[in-house]
């Protein structure tokens, strides 16, 4: 029955629009009478606004309004504290968006924003996470609903009795998502209805939040997100820009375009929390782990609890009879952390996969062999069977492709001129989940098909993948299928995040197309002019999934060279091999995996939010001072996958691959740097001063 579109490489459908500049993003739709909003950040860390004087701003030619908590339209307080914007004088962190200037031009709005006078009563603040912060507490659960702590067997006794022990603390700094398109919205009200063009990872949730915030029916809100310039988690839930734009448009009764500035993306829209992680591994001399423990500390804000699931990775990755994981949080006067590519798994894997490398060295065992020896047969956490687990296959295939076999494991054993050369490997896993979605499929009288689902393509290739899936489910050539996504008027679907997009959406698309085929089989005569449409939802099927350990796996290999004089680290090449179920479109899949690994290079070597405790804000809050990996930083990255069929996932058999690429990458690089230099860096990023100053290195 399959037409064979799934699995075939295909350039992304919107490619021509994206290379000609005709793909329109959130604030790029032509509009009459448009105005411009500019958000104003708080200049206090903790306290209350005692006075706002908008007059100097209103005196700027072209400025129409200054919105603040004293005059903004009222919002429902029951939706989400983060979105309760311009409603209260309280300031919870520096940079909180506390006013919006609306003007006839961008220039006037920007100038006006400089002239809003705000006075504060301030209180002492605490903004720096430490391992002994007095406010550390145990949250009720960690994201997105996991138990906070887990324990099995007797870790302490088993660790004490182990022949080989690793006990190390790893630190990761704050990371900022920085999609290239900032959070941006065009909002317009017409007859009590709200239309927004918004940059987000799921407009169904944005529609729901706006309806509740403004107290209007969902049907009165439409959110269009045709093209989205990246998100990496930061647009996974409605954020400030869309709410501020809707408030401003209501206030001035004209359309408003509002984009956050690049500087405003360092805080108000979330970031990856800093972490402090202690990992302990106890094994026998052959590297068989008896005791494993991962204690993670991270931060949240005073507004909303965000509990990064940092140690959850360790619960299911490697076998050990005695195991424990804990999470503790400090509630600081900082912006609320949020999702960033593989939240939890990414920083957690840096710690555990580094510790595994330390254990391999301590035991004198090859790090791939160490992982093979500690491969579990069932999920060590819940005892459930794995729907499929191909970590070892990834390690083996990757080792062959990378040329791991002839590696001399001694640190500092390879030098070419001024470069010390090393190689490293890490494992990776990420949950393979799906969420309920709905879709419709329509057979048109002209022989074409229309498939509608409110999926979002943030650059993943979702539009193209769903088009391929639909063609196969309809058993027609893909050229006869039109796919429509990115509009809340379409059947509701879940977020483009958590590596759940294609799994969730392709499921609904498949069901709608299958049911349409059934209906057409019973239909006689010609189709009506509007075509024949069927709707499908996967809510029941998704709910009925049996409990199982469903994970994507991967193995990243890195070769680095380190300048023996300066400590400069270059990643000469990387190979990643992944087990991600069925690959719908090899073209876009490869791009996404390479992109994840690239962001992993960035995490390992470049990114670091540096907080100034006095002012409670990141000092480096732009793209010159917060370096993300650039073209000159990337030399050679290959991504491949193993053939994997998994019948316990979803009809298409996909696991999702948005996150798995980044998960183990930073550890692979840190392990390679250790191999090159003998220096183990346990606090990212691996800056040259951490290498050049070390005695083993010299």
């Amino acid at each position, binding site marked *: 029955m399959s037409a064979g579109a799934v699995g075939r490489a295909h*350039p*992304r459908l*919107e*490619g*021509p*629009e*994206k*290379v*000609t*500049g005709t*793909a*329109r*993003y959130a604030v*790029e739709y*032509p509009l*009459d*009478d*448009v*105005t*411009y909003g500019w958000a104003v950040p708080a200049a206090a860390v903790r306290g209350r606004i005692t006075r706002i004087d908008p007059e100097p701003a209103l005196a700027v*030619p*072209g400025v129409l309004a200054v919105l603040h908590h004293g005059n903004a339209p009222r919002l429902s307080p029951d939706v989400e504290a983060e979105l309760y914007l311009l409603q209260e004088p309280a300031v919870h962190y520096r940079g909180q968006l506390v006013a919006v200037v609306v003007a*006839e*031009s*961008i*220039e*006037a709005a920007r*100038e006006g924003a400089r002239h809003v006078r705000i006075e504060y009563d301030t209180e002492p603040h605490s903004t720096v996470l430490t391992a002994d912060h007095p406010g550390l507490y145990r949250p009720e659960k960690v994201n997105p609903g996991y138990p906070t702590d887990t324990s099995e067997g007797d870790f302490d006794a088993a660790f004490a009795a182990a022949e080989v022990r690793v006990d190390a603390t790893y630190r990761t700094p704050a990371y900022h998502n*920085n*999609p*290239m*398109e*900032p959070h941006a919205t065009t909002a317009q009200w017409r007859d009590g209805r709200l239309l927004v063009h918004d940059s987000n990872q799921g407009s169904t949730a944005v529609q729901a939040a706006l309806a509740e915030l403004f107290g209007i029916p969902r049907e009165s809100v439409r959110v269009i997100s045709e*093209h*989205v*310039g*990246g998100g*990496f988690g930061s647009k996974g839930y409605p954020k400030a820009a869309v709410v501020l734009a809707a408030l401003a448009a209501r206030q001035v009764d004209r359309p408003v375009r509002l984009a956050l500035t*690049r500087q405003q993306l360092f805080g108000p829209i979330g970031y990856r929390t800093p972490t402090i992680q202690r990992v302990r591994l106890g094994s026998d001399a052959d590297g068989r782990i008896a005791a494993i423990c991962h204690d993670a500390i991270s931060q949240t804000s005073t507004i909303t609890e965000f509990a990064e699931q940092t140690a959850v990775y360790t619960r299911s990755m490697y076998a050990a009879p005695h195991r424990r994981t804990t999470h503790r949080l400090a509630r600081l006067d900082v912006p609320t952390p949020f999702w960033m590519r593989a939240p939890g798994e990414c920083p957690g894997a840096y710690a555990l996969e580094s510790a595994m490398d330390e254990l391999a060295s301590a035991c004198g065992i090859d790090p791939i062999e160490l992982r093979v020896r500690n491969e579990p047969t069932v999920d060590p956490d819940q005892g459930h069977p794995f729907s499929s687990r191909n970590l070892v296959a990834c390690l083996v295939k990757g080792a062959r492709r990378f040329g791991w076999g002839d590696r001399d494991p001694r640190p500092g054993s390879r030098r070419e001129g001024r470069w010390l050369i090393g190689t490293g490997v890490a494992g990776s896993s990420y949950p393979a989940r799906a969420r309920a979605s709905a879709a419709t499929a329509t057979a048109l009288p002209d022989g074409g098909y229309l498939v509608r689902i409110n999926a979002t393509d*943030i*650059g*993943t290739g979702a539009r193209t993948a769903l088009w391929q899936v639909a063609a196969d489910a309809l058993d027609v050539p893909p050229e006869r299928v039109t796919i429509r996504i990115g509009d809340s008027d379409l059947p509701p679907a879940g977020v483009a995040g958590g590596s759940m997009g294609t799994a969730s959406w392709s499921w609904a698309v498949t069901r709608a197309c299958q049911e349409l085929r059934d209906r057409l089989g019973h239909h006689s005569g010609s189709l009506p002019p509007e075509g024949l449409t069927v709707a499908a939802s996967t809510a029941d099927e998704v709910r009925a999934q049996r409990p199982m350990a469903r994970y994507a796996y991967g193995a990243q290999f890195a070769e680095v060279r380190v300048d023996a004089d300066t400590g400069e680290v270059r990643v000469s090449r990387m190979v990643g091999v992944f087990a991600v179920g069925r690959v719908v479109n090899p*073209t*876009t899949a490869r*791009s996404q995996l*390479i*992109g*994840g*690994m*690239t962001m992993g290079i960035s995490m390992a070597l470049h990114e670091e939010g540096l907080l100034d405790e006095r002012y409670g804000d990141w000092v480096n809050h*732009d*793209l010159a001072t917060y370096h*993300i*990996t*650039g*073209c*000159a930083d*990337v*030399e050679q*990255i290959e991504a491949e996958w193993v053939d994997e069929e998994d019948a316990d996932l979803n009809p298409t058999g996909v696991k999702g691959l948005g996150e798995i690429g980044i998960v183990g990458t930073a550890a692979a690089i840190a392990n390679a740097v250790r191999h090159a230099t003998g220096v183990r860096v346990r606090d990212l990023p691996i800056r040259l001063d951490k290498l050049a100053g070390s005695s083993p290195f010299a």
Partner: protein
Amino acid sequence: MQNRSGSASVAGDERSSPVAFTVNGTRRELTLDNRTTLLDALREHLDLVGAKKGCDHGQCGSCTVLLEGRRVKSCLILAVTLDDCAITTVEGLAGPDQLSPLQEAFVAQDAFQCGYCTPGQLCSARGVLDEIAEGWPSAVTDDLTGAVRPTDAEIRERMAGNLCRCGAYPHIVAAIRETAGDR
């Protein structure tokens, strides 16, 4: 395109100036707020939204266009300074009915994901190819006086000012290399 911004409120006073330049071969006459950047002039006054605003700060390269054939960051240039200049944006790279070889290569190599940095990458790449053809050396050119070859190292170095958070760099380099080879 009807757009009240930057015209009704400021026209005719010392805060605005007339300017005339050519964009993608078409002459444009505008009266603009003196503070209007080339990027905002293109996006908000000419409905040429290809050039993107990623940072408005000259740090990301998303707004790259060609000014008199050379790549510039349009967010750092005031539009009223550009009298009689010729500007090419991503909208001007394609022929009337088909993509340019560079654009074709970007699509074929999947040299982008979200597409937001892509117009800047393309304009920058166009500039890079011309700079290499004209023999301009870069920081990684070994022989400063000889011909420059479009090696991966040259392309990576010259494209370093155009950030891509999706991480399409290997494919961007491949697309540019492929296009250079066709010349």
